[in-house]
C-alpha cells in the first residue's frame, strides 16, 4: 500500500467511523415515535383508567412500584427497590427508591404511595384498578416507617398482591388534581405535553425520569411520542405504509398478511396471546328456550361431543390465516406461569363425537341428529355483527357440526342486543364471543368462574352452585384466592382448568396470535404477547432518522 493509498484509507476509515458514530448518536437519542390510539382516552387520571387508550397512556407516563416484565412475565422492581408480602397475603412492605423525582421536580416519597392507595381504595372514586384489591370489608391502612419505607395492610388476604401493583401508577400527594390529571405530575418516562381531543396526544420525555441505561445514559432515549387518535384501522395502516406511523399494535390477520407480503421484516407474530374465542350453551334454568334443548345444553356429554366435532385447526388456518392456535383451556399457553401444561389439545373427532352422542340416546335420521324424543338437534349460534373473524368461525362450526347431523343457525346481532340477551333476558341458545385478557393472574377471572358471579356466562348469578363441578370450581377459586403460596395457588387453579376442560361450560376454540408491526426505523423493539405489545420497552426505543 503506497503512502497516498494509506492516507486515503485512513481518511475513509475515519469518515466511516465518524459516520457510524453519528448514526449511533442519532439512533441513541432524540426522535419522535408515532403510533395510533384506537379510541379517545377516557381519562388521564391513572387511578380511573379502564379503556385501552388510557391504559396505554398510563403505561407510558405512570411510575409503578413493581412492574411485570412484559417479556419474561416476571416481577421487577421499579419505584420500589424491594418488597415483601406477608404470609397471610394481607400486607406488603415496600422499600422505596430514593432520589426519584416527579416531572415537576418534587421528590417521590412514601407519602405519595400512601396518598395513591387512599385515593385508589376510596369507594367514591369507583376505580377499576382499586376494585381488584377489594377482597374484604374494611379499610386499607398504610404505615409509613420512613420516607422510603412503608407497609400497606389490607383487611383480607389479596392473592397475587405484588403483581397487582403493576397497574397502580403512583400520583403525587402534593400536586395531583383529578380535574387536571392531564398535567400530572408524572413518574413515568414520558409526560403528557399536549392533548388535542379527537386528534392526538403528545408525550414528551420526562426530564426527571430516574432510570439510566447500562452506560449511565438517562432514559428514555426518545424525545417524544405522538399518539394519533384514529379508530379506523385502514387509515392506521395507510399511515404506517406512508411512514407516518412507526408502530401498529394488535394487528388483525388480514392486515398482517398484507403487510407481510410487502415487507415481511416489518411484521411480528409473537405467538399465541392471552385472548381467547369461545362458544357456550345457555344453561340458565329460567331461560325462555324449550326444556328439551335445556336438557341437551346441561348435558356434559353433549357439550363435549360438540367440542370434539369442531375442527379448531381449520378455524386457525382458514379464519385466522394461521395466526391463531387451537385453545387448550381457559388460559392460553402464553400465560407462562398459570397455564396448566397437563392439558392436551382437543382433537377433531367427529366420529367419536357422534358415537358419544348416540350413547346418550341421540340418533341419526336421514342425516339429521335427533334426540331420544325425536327432536331435531338444531340450535342458534349468536355472535356480534361486524366481526368477520367470529362470523367466519361460526360458519365453519356450522359446517363441522352439520357432519354429525347437528343443524346450526348462525345469527349475527348488534352488540347491545346480544348483551341484552346474554345478561338480561337469557333468550339465546349458544353464543360465540371472545375474552380479552390483560391480567395474567386467575384472580382477575373470579367474576367469570364463581357460580355466583355476573360474568359466569353460561349460568350467571346462581344462589348456590347448581352442579357439583361448579361447586368444586367455586371452592378451588376461593382457595387459590386466599392462599399465599404461589405453588399452592397454581395447584388449585390447575384443577379448575382441568374441570373446565372436562365439563366444557365454555368450549374454548382458539387463542389469537399477538400480531404487530414496527417500522424499520424503530430500534430496540421486541414485540411481546402482553399489552402493550410493541412499546412495552418504550423508554429504550430509539428512532433512526429516515433518509
Amino acid at each position, binding site marked *: 500500500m503506497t503512502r497516498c493509498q494509506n492516507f486515503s484509507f485512513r481518511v475513509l476509515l475515519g469518515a466511516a467511523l465518524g459516520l457510524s458514530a453519528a448514526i449511533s448518536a442519532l439512533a441513541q437519542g432524540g426522535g419522535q415515535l408515532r403510533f395510533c390510539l384506537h379510541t379517545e382516552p377516557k381519562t388521564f387520571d391513572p387511578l380511573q383508567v379502564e379503556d385501552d387508550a388510557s391504559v396505554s397512556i398510563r403505561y407510558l407516563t405512570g411510575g409503578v412500584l413493581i412492574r411485570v416484565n412484559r417479556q419474561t412475565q416476571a416481577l421487577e422492581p421499579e419505584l420500589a427497590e424491594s418488597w415483601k408480602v406477608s404470609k397471610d397475603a394481607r400486607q406488603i412492605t415496600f422499600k422505596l427508591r430514593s432520589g426519584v423525582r416527579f416531572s415537576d421536580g418534587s421528590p417521590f416519597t412514601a407519602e405519595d404511595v400512601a396518598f395513591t392507595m387512599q385515593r385508589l381504595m376510596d369507594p367514591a372514586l369507583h376505580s377499576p384498578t382499586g376494585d381488584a384489591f377489594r377482597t374484604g370489608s374494611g379499610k386499607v391502612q398504610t404505615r409509613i416507617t420512613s420516607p422510603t419505607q412503608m407497609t400497606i395492610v389490607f383487611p383480607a388476604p389479596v392473592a397475587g398482591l405484588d403483581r397487582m401493583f403493576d397497574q397502580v401508577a403512583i400520583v403525587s400527594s402534593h400536586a395531583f388534581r383529578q380535574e387536571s390529571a392531564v398535567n400530572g405530575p408524572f413518574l413515568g418516562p414520558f409526560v403528557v405535553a399536549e392533548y388535542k381531543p379527537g386528534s392526538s396526544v403528545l408525550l414528551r420525555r420526562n426530564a426527571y425520569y430516574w432510570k439510566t441505561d447500562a452506560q449511565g445514559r438517562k432514559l428514555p432515549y426518545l424525545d417524544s411520542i405522538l399518539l394519533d387518535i384514529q379508530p379506523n384501522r385502514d387509515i392506521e395502516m395507510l399511515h404506517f405504509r406512508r411512514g407516518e406511523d412507526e408502530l401498529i399494535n394488535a394487528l388483525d390477520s388480514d392486515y398482517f398478511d398484507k403487510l407481510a407480503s410487502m415487507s415481511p421484516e416489518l411484521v411480528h407474530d409473537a405467538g399465541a396471546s392471552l385472548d381467547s374465542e369461545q362458544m357456550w350453551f345457555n344453561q340458565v334454568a329460567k331461560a325462555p328456550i324449550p326444556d328439551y334443548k335445556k336438557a341437551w345444553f346441561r348435558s356434559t356429554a353433549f357439550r363435549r361431543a360438540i367440542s370434539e366435532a369442531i375442527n379448531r385447526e381449520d378455524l386457525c388456518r382458514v379464519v385466522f390465516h394461521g395466526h391463531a392456535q387451537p385453545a387448550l383451556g381457559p388460559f392460553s399457553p402464553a400465560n407462562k406461569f398459570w397455564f396448566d401444561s397437563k392439558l392436551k389439545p382437543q382433537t377433531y373427532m367427529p366420529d367419536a363425537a357422534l358415537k358419544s352422542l348416540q350413547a346418550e340416546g341421540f340418533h341419526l335420521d336421514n342425516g339429521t341428529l335427533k334426540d331420544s324424543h325425536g327432536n331435531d338437534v338444531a*340450535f*342458534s349460534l349468536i355472535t356480534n*355483527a*361486524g366481526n*368477520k373473524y367470529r362470523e367466519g368461525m361460526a360458519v365453519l362450526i356450522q359446517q363441522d357440526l352439520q357432519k354429525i347431523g347437528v343443524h346450526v343457525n348462525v*345469527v349475527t346481532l348488534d352488540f347491545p*342486543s346480544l348483551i341484552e340477551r346474554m345478561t338480561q333476558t337469557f333468550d339465546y341458545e349458544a353464543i360465540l364471543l371472545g375474552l380479552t385478557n390483560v391480567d395474567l393472574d386467575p384472580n382477575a377471572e373470579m367474576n367469570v368462574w364463581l357460580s355466583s358471579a355476573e360474568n359466569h356466562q353460561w349460568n350467571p348469578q346462581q344462589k348456590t352452585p347448581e352442579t357439583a363441578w361448579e361447586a368444586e370450581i367455586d371452592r378451588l377459586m376461593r382457595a387459590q384466592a386466599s392462599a399465599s403460596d404461589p405453588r399452592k395457588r397454581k395447584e388449585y387453579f390447575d384443577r379448575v382448568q382441568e374441570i373446565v376442560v372436562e365439563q366444557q361450560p365454555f368450549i374454548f376454540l382458539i387463542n389469537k396470535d399477538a400480531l404487530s408491526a414496527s417500522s424499520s426505523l424503530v430500534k430496540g423493539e421486541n414485540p411481546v404477547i402482553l399489552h402493550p405489545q410493541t412499546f412495552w420497552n418504550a423508554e429504550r426505543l430509539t428512532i433512526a432518522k429516515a433518509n
Partner: protein
Amino acid sequence: MNFWQKLAGCILLLVVCLSLAAGWLAPAGYAYQDRENAGAPPSHQHWLGTDDLGRDRFARILYGTRISLLLAPAAALISTLLAAMIGGFAGYAGGIWQRAATAITDLFLSLPWLFLLIAVRALMPLNISPLESVTVTFSLLGLLGWTAAARVLCAAGASLRDSDFVCQARASGVRNSRLFWIHVLPNMAPVLLAQFWISIPVFILSEANLGILGLGVAEPLPSWGSLLRELEGMISIGDEPWKLAPLALLVVVVTCFQIVLSNQQEVAA
C-alpha cells in the same frame, strides 16, 4: 323504449337467467367450503376464486343474485301495497284521513330506518333457517320502506279525488266504495307500477347496506350485501380485483334498473 332501455332490459334478463341457472353453472353450490383453497385467486375450478372460507365466489354471486333479484321485488310489492292502502286511500278520502296519513308518513320518514331495522331484527326469533331469515329481512324492508311511496300515492289519490270524472261519477250517485275500486284504483295503476319498479333497486341497496353491517341474510346463504363485505378493508382490493365482482354486478343491475325505469320515474314524478 329506446335503444339503451332495451339494452339495459336485456342485461337484466341475462343476469336473471344466469342466476336461475346457478345450480347448473356452479354445481359446487354456495355453501361448500373448500378449506384447502380458501382465498384462492381465479382458476379453472373457481372462476372468480374463493372467499376467505373457501367457498366458490362465482357460485355465491349467482345464488346471491337470485336472492336479491327475487326478494327485492317481493319487498317492493309489500311496500307498494302498504303505500297504496295508506297513502292512496288517505289521499282519496281527504280530510282527517289525509292529515293522519301524512303525519304517520312524516313520523316514519323521520325515523332512522337503519336503526329501526336493526332494532326490529334484534327482536325476531333466533332459531330460524337461513331461508326464513332472508324472507324476514326482505319482509322487514318492505314493511318499513312504504313511506316515500305513500306520499306519492297520497298526492295521486288527492288529485283523483278532485278530478272531473270522479266528481261526475259522484254526482251521478255512484257509491264511494264502487267509485274507489272501479274508477280511482285503475287510474292509480301507473303510479303504483312506477313506485313498485323504482322501489326494487332501493331494496337491493338496502339489503346490501344491512349485509355490509353483517345484519343481512343469515349464513351460509349469500346475498349481495354479504358478498360486498369482502370489500371492507380497502387494502385487499388492489391486488385482488376479482373481489370487486359483486360490486360491479350490483352497479350494473342498479344502473340497468334506473335506465329501464326512467319512464316510470317520470310517471311517478
